[in-house]
């Protein structure tokens, strides 16, 4: 399983931030301008292709922190 740091790199690619951002596990997703439905699509694909795991939009809506998304890798 990826470390949090490895996960964060993949997460940043999946969300496709307009400008480089510094993320930690404690970063609140609501503070990220790009945390929108398009980001959800990218993250769902990332989980599917990188972790062979099917997550839903609802799973992501329930996440508050970056670490909550990381926990979905489970």
């Amino acid at each position, binding site marked *: 399983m990826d470390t949090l740091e490895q996960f964060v790199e993949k997460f940043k690619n999946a969300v496709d931030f*307009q400008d480089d951002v510094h993320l930690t596990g404690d970063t609140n997703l609501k503070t990220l301008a*790009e945390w929108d439905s*398009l980001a959800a*699509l990218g993250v*769902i694909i990332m989980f599917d292709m990188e972790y062979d795991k099917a997550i839903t*939009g609802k799973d992501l809506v329930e996440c508050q922190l970056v670490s909550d998304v990381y926990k979905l890798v489970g």
Partner: protein
Amino acid sequence: MTQATIRNVRYAGMASCVPRRVLSNLNDCPPQIRSARERVVRNIGIETRRICPEWQTFSDLAFDATERLLAELQWNKDEIDALIVITQSPDYLIPATAIILQDRLGLKPGTIAFDINLGCSAYAFGLHVLGAMMASGGIRKALLLVGDKAATVIEPLFSDAGTATALEYDPAAPPMYFDLNSDGSGYRAIMLPAGGHREPIGPQHLVPYKDEDGILRSPAALVLDGPAVLSFSTQRVPPAVRDLLAYADCPIEAVDYFIFHQANRMINDTIRKKLGLPVEKVPSTLHDFGNTSGASIPVTMTARLREVLQSGKHKVLMSGFGIGLSWGSCIVDIDRAVFPVLVES
């Protein structure tokens, strides 16, 4: 899944028509969302779309595609026995657009004509329904018209197109193979909730509201659950394609081209990667023509493969998926069929 083989039916030709008016997802979007739109375009892969002016309908595009196709096929209109239209943007709620087009195209009153209500999955379903009607030989020549008028100026996804496909009875034709599926439990993922009998249009649908970007939205607009559609498409389509190949006893390498519904780049890239397909076998028109609903498979053939498909024999796997939820794939051997250049109307 339902799997089926259609024999005795030849894919004779196909024409696509798009409106002349080109809309840029970048230059024609409201300034306050321009920056965010760049990211959207990068990810969905759609830069320009075609949009009908107010007065132009899907059936106008399909009409022009049909006229061009019949002229190049040199088919006599009296020979057409059946006309099926698949659209979710009919001229009127009733009667069926196919029947109006029977007369407008100058087809004989003896023509079988009716509509089917499907969207992005339409093409394989249409080929199956019409092919099954023709296989016994009672119907010799027939037309399948597929497409939609779904583009709006604001939404970056949909683009307008109308297409016409010609099939003919031919005992020497190679078989067509089909894999067709429906899952109505996902009907809310893409829907137009108002305007039918469950929720007739009322005054509450006529008052626009401002979204978080200050853009006016209609309460009667299409509702699309992006994550649900993406999950459905990327989970359901690759196994369905594999199932079809197994059913047809066709090695994946034997297929010359895989033509998928043009949904968005994220969905289409994921499906292609899951199936391990090389880019050169999977043509795309997303960048230039966006998501043209049920027309996207024919439009992609016209825009990217017409010269190839006119010469010699090619094995083509087509797969459409979307609203319903519904997904259908087919394998068709296209042998020197007629493919007019893209019609712009």
